[in-house]
C-alpha cells in the first residue's frame, strides 16, 4: 500500500531544497565540473584529438553522469544514516507508513534530482559538447535512471551497514570511488591485471559504464542485454540483503 508516498516524496523534495549546500553539491557540482572541463579543453573535446584522454573527450558525458550518480548515492547514504541516528526513522515507523514507502519516497526524490541535474548538465554543456551527432537522449536518460536505481540499492546496502552518520559519507566514498577506478571508464577493463578484471566484473559500476557508454554512442539496448541483466540481478541482491540487515535505530 502506498498511502502517504506522494506526500512524503514531495515533502522530502521540499525539505532537501531548503538546504542550500546539499542542492549545490548534488545539482551544482556535476554541472560545474562539466562546464569547467569544457571550458579548459575547448574545441579539442569535440574532435577527440590524440592529446586528450578518452575519458575527457568521447566519455565526458559518461564521467559527468557518474559524478551525478555517485553524489546521488552518497547523499542517500548520508540521509538514511542521519534519519536513523536522529530517531526520525523510528518515529516514521510508528505510523501506518510502511517501511518500503519511506525508502521509496527517498529513491523517488533522488531520481528526480538526478534527472534535473542531467538536464542542467546537458544544457550547460551544450556550448562545449555538441549534441547534434545523433545522441539518443531519451534512451540515455532512461539508462541513467535505471543505473541510478541499481546504484541506489547499493547505497541502501551501505546505509544498512554503516553504524553512524559520521561514517556514512567516508564509507560510501570508500566503496564508490575505487569502483569507478576499475569500472572501465578511465582504463579499459580488458587492459587491467587479471585480478582487477575479476573484481571489475563483480561490481555494478563496470556494467553501468558499459551500458551508458554504449547507449550514448548509439548502441541499441539489445546490444547491452548482458549489462542490464547483471545490473538487475545486483539490484535484486542488494535490495534483498539490505532489507534483511537494515536497522531502523
Amino acid at each position, binding site marked *: 500500500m502506498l*498511502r502517504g508516498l506522494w506526500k512524503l516524496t514531495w515533502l522530502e523534495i521540499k*525539505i532537501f531544497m*531548503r*538546504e542550500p549546500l546539499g542542492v549545490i553539491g548534488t545539482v551544482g557540482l556535476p554541472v560545474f565540473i562539466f562546464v569547467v572541463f569544457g571550458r579548459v579543453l575547448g574545441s579539442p573535446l569535440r574532435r577527440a584529438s590524440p592529446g586528450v584522454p578518452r575519458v575527457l573527450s568521447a566519455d565526458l558525458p559518461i564521467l559527468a553522469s557518474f559524478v551525478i550518480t555517485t553524489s546521488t548515492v552518497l547523499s542517500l547514504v548520508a540521509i538514511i544514516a542521519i534519519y536513523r541516528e536522529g530517531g*526520525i526513522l523510528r518515529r516514521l515507523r510508528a505510523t501506518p507508513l510502511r517501511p518500503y514507502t519511506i525508502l521509496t519516497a527517498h529513491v523517488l526524490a533522488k531520481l528526480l534530482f538526478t534527472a534535473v541535474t542531467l538536464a542542467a548538465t546537458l544544457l550547460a554543456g551544450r556550448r562545449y559538447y555538441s549534441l547534434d551527432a545523433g545522441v539518443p537522449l531519451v534512451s540515455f536518460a532512461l539508462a541513467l535512471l535505471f543505473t541510478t536505481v541499481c546504484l541506489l540499492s547499493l547505497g541502501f546496502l551501505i546505509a544498512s551497514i554503516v553504524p553512524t552518520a559520521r561514517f556514512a559519507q567516508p564509507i560510501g566514498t570508500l566503496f564508490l570511488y575505487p569502483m569507478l577506478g576499475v569500472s572501465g571508464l578511465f582504463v579499459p577493463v580488458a587492459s587491467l591485471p587479471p585480478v582487477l578484471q575479476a573484481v571489475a566484473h563483480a561490481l555494478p559500476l563496470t556494467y553501468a559504464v558499459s551500458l551508458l557508454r554504449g547507449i550514448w554512442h548509439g548502441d541499441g539496448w539489445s546490444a547491452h542485454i548482458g549489462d542490464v541483466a547483471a545490473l538487475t540481478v545486483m539490484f535484486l541482491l542488494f535490495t534483498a540483503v539490505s532489507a534483511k540487515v537494515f536497522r531502523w535505530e
Partner: protein
Amino acid sequence: MTECPAGTTVTPQPVIHAAAIRKTYGRTVAVDEVSFDVQPGEIFGLIGPNGAGKTTTMECVGGLRVPDRGLISVLGLDPRRDVYALQERIGVQLQEAQLQKRIKVREAVGLWASLYRKPVDGDRLIEQLGLGDKRNAWFMTLSGGQKQRLFIALALINDPELVFLDELTTGLDPQARRAIWELVRGIRQRGKTVFLTTHLMEEAERLCDRVAIIDHGRLVDIGTPAELVRRHCPERTVIMVCEDAAAGERFRAIPQVQSVTIEGLQLTIRGVGSDLVTHVIQCVAEHRMRVNDFRTELPTLEDVFLKLTGHMIRD
C-alpha cells in the same frame, strides 16, 4: 460480554492486558515477567529509573518490539499480528524521536493526517496545542516544549482511543512541564486512555491515576500513588512550633507517635498511620497549647521507590 446478570457490576474490558511479558537483549533481561492491566479512561504510568525496562515494555505493548514471551492484548488486538490495525487506533509519542530538521509544523501534521483513515482537523489541533504561531516554523527552530507539543499533536491526529507517551517531559523546564501535564489531563478528559512512562516521581504523582513501579525489568508494585504511599510508607511527620514546655511529653503519650525531637521551640513528631495527624491535633486542642506554626510532611512516591528498591530513582 454482551449479557450480564442483573445486579452484578461488570469490570470493563481492560484497554491493555499484559501478562508475564519478557524481553532479553543478548544476556541482558530488559523486561522480566511483567504483568499489568490498563483500564479505559485512566492515565496509567510506568515509573522507574532510566534503563529499568519502561520503554521496552511500552514498545512491546505498542507493537514496535516483539517480546520473547508473554501475552499482550491492546484494544482487543494482538500488537504483533494486528500492528497495522492497531496503529489506526493508537497514538504514539516516542522517547528521543526527531523529525526532519527542515520540516514545517504544518507539513508534519499534514503528512501524519494523510496516513490515517479518519484524521481530525490538523489546523485545529495545532491551535489547541498552542503552536498556532509556529505553523510555518521548521522543526529545528522549535524549543523543547514546542517539539513535545508537536509530537503530542502527531499522536492525537488520528483521534486515537489510547495514547502512548514515553518520557514526555524529560529535558523540559518546570513551566513547560506543567503546561504539558495540562495537555495530558485534557487527553483524558476527552475520554481517551493514556499509557505513559516517566522517571519523574512528581510527574507520576500529579498526573497518573495508577502507576506501576518497575526496576531492573521487574514490576515491583502497582496501584494509585496514594495507595502505594499508604502501603509502603505509612510514616507521617508533623512539624510545629510550640511554646508549651510540656508539649514533648504530651505528644509522646500518643500511642501512634514513635519519636519527638525538640530543637528550640520546634517539635518534630514522627509516627505511623493516617490518623496520626488527627491525634496530634486533638492533643493540641485538649491541652490548649499555643501553636505558632504547624505543617505535616507526607511521604511521596520517591520515598516509596527508595523503600521498595533500596536506591534513589536518579542515580
